[in-house]
């Protein structure tokens, strides 16, 4: 089943890597380089899954996450957070704000593919 994935990250090389992996898994992919454009893209593109970075210019990942969770139109959207902030507290904060899964950078590609599949299966 072909799903729609949105990648929001300000690190171009990470975006390239995640995009490659998601495409290889057979999904349709769009990308955004900061929080603001990411949020706009989420509203227009209505992705099934958003791979979201935390530290970004303009609007950070937590703010994007909160805005999506407050938007009833984006109700079923799954969110996987990627962050270089490795502390447990950060992880908890993301999950408390409504993220579905969390991966610290650097992440094993297998984990990313596995988590994405799980979340997309649940979104059916």
């Amino acid at each position, binding site marked *: 089943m072909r799903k729609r994935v949105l990648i929001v990250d300000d690190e171009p090389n990470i975006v390239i890597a995640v995009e490659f992996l998601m495409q*290889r898994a057979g999904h349709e992919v769009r990308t955004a380089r900061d929080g603001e454009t990411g949020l706009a893209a989420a509203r227009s593109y209505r992705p099934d899954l958003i791979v979201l970075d935390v530290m970004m210019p*303009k609007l950070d990942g937590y703010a994007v996450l909160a805005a999506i969770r407050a938007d009833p139109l984006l109700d079923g959207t799954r969110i996987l957070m*990627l962050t270089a902030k490795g502390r447990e507290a950060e992880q908890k904060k993301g999950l408390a704000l409504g993220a579905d899964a969390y991966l*610290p*950078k650097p*992440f094993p*590609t297998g984990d990313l593919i596995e988590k994405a599949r799980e979340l997309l299966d649940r979104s059916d």
Partner: protein
Amino acid sequence: MISGSLIVGVSFVYLGLLFGIAYWADGRAQQGRSVIAHPTVYALSLAVYCTAWTFYGSVGRAAEDGLGFLPIYLGPTLIALLWSSLLLKMVRISKSERITSIADFIGSRYGKSHVLSGVVTVIAVIGVLPYIALQLKAIAWSFSILNAYPDLRMPDQQSVPLWHDTAFVVALLLAAFTILFGTRHLDASERHEGMVAAIAFDSIVKLVAFMAVGLFVILGFLGIGGGPPLPSLADNPHLASLLKPLFEPGIASLQRWIAISVLAGLAMMVLPRQFQVAVVEISDERHLRRAIWLFPLYLLLINLCVIPIAMAGLITFQDGQVDADTFVLTLPIAFSQPWLALLVFIGGLSAATGMVIVETIALSTMVSNDLILPALTRRWRRRPPMASLSGLLINIRRGAIVVILLLGYLYYRLAGEAYALIGIGLISFVAVAQFAPALIGGLYWRGGTREGALAGLLAGFLVWIYTLLLPSFARSGWLPPAFMESGPDGLDFLAPLALFGLSGWDEITHGLFWSLTANIGAFLLVSSLRAPDAIEIARARVFVDALRQHRPTGALLWRGSAEVVELIELAERILGVSRARAAFARYARARGVALPVNIPADAETVHFAETLLSGAIGSASARVMVASVTEEESLGLDEVLDILNEASQIRAYSHQLEQKSIALEAATNELRAANARLQELDQLKDDFVSSVTHELRTPLASIRAFSEILFDDPRLQLDQRRHFLGILVSETERLSRLVNQVLDLAKLESGHADWRSEAVELQEVIEQAFAATGHLIEERGIAVVRELHPQPAVVWGDRDRLIQVLVNLLSNGVKYAPANQGRLRVELFPVETNWRVCIADNGPGIPADELDLVFEKFHQSAVDGAKPAGTGLGLHICRQIIHNLGGRIWAENLAPAGASVCFELPAHSTDPITPK
């Protein structure tokens, strides 16, 4: 217009007013609403220092030797500076020991000695009686001058019958007043509130009256009112010579100025009346703080008009028929100002009455407690006294007041116009100044003994009689004048006015010098003959440590047996039943027992009884009386020293504890501050580690992801594989650059970086930086413009570090300039004594609020909303380097587009930089 009956009437009204004020103040005091418990009233009461001698005499002195009158007021002003130690000590001691007079104070200091306080009393009475006589004379003279109005007539020595003699009537009136308000209570250590209020009022009246004459004279000089005009001196050589001392004040004789200042300063502390108002009557020691400036201010005001009045007097009475001492009064008469003259008379009256009342109260307390009572107690030892003594004691004091005033009157009648009266003011001062060594020495030196103090006092007093009193008798014609010149039996070196060949000094300076020398010498010499005994050590402790100790140690040093009932009975006999019972009842409550009879008969109680009686009969008599009803075991010196040592050890220990706790508190505060600082540093370090971790994880994440992709997927197309490998390489480079920069930063911040100090030419540095970044510039297709000053731009610094800065700034410029249309402009030019380098790009510029932030760690400005490839440390490191080399670095935006980063370094060149 002015008649005798009017003057008498006004005088009575004025004295009645004083009575009224005193009565009112006493009434208020009984209701507990004291009017004198005010620092201004205290300062005004100190102005009892200014007597009729000041009021009339300063002008006389000024007319004779110009500013020579000033030291009499300069001394007290200077000594006021010491009050916060000296006077405060005296006040504290007197309050805790219930001291009643200067005689009691000195006697108490050297072991509550009857002999010592008796000698002080005798000296005080002999020294001060003529001074009281002087006040009576001033009143009588001013009355007789004013009575002759409008004629101007100097009074003769009167040979009128007693009842017509103004001075006699005045003496009786003042005695009545003093008895009424000075002996209401037996306890002389209690304040005489009514008397203090009255003399504070006196002080205002005399100041107002004196300044009124001053104003009248000054306005006259200015041509306003009816005062004397200022004549031209050029056409009147006689007048000019008269006024000469006023216009050429000069310090004619320095030693005289110093001597009289010292003398007046000492008198201020030891005159019986000054001790009375300053120490006995003070209601709150905080009042001293205001008196320290207000009293000198009062002296300044009352002296302000002395010179103008003296001038006016000399101008008006050029024939010399009018005594300069009367100018204050005769000037208003000469210019037909009857009401002003009357005001002056009242002012002089107030100055005289204030002095006489306070001095008499002080002297009567001394005479009764330190001369008469000791004699009586000796008699009582053989024959028991009557049941109640309080009435007797009060009457002794009243009798003493009348006798002292009559003696004063007698002296006035006998000495009259003689020099012995006129010159007496300063001579009196020298007599009482003899108290100073025993008093001040006793407050600051522990080594003084009873015999030493006695020897000093007697030696000083005898020299005073010889060098000052006898010559004044000789001038009055009572002794052959030759006596002054040649000394007894023609022994010239013993001549009273040139003792031991000391000539050329005036009489007062000479007398003061020799009497104080003899006094201090004898005091020190005799004191050194033996070590202080037990009692003297204990008393020294109470006096010298008065400002340090909180509780007197008097009670510690008594051992023996006593019956409380007997102590109470003794107090009842002396103080009266009701007062004694009330005092013991208060003490019982303080000790925590219900009834006075239950008070434990211990040392503390005996001490309480002794202090209670001290207020009424003086400390020496109190000690004798208490000893008569108790059995005291005499303590040996060793025991006393043990007790005192114990007390002082405890005190020293608690002092140490106090110091320790202060030190601990300070250390705690320091630790707290250091801890806060550490926490701050810790937070900074955490933030830094967290930032570095974040910056490391980001390239690592790319590296890991692409490595796994390449590893897992062998079927990737070649160009994609190459693309991914390229990313791997650049992310690895970024990682190693980051690690290097973090290490570099750590080195810079720790201060362990090795800096080479050399002369560096900035042009070379710029070229080398271009060489290092050439390929980057070419790659991005960026045009470069160099505008470098032709003169070698030499700075002092580290070449490699400077290249590092320039490479960094060039790379930044390249990074932010748009690819292919990018322009980079490098400028080098002098600004004042600095060289400035600017690197400008035509990129997007820096948001205005981030111009300073870009130099912070891990701060990066986004390019078109995306993150630039960099570590976020470069500019921070540049700033560290430039600051280290003594320069500054900043960023600014350019119009229409682009940003410029500039730095300045001090030029290292002896040649001045020439502009381009």
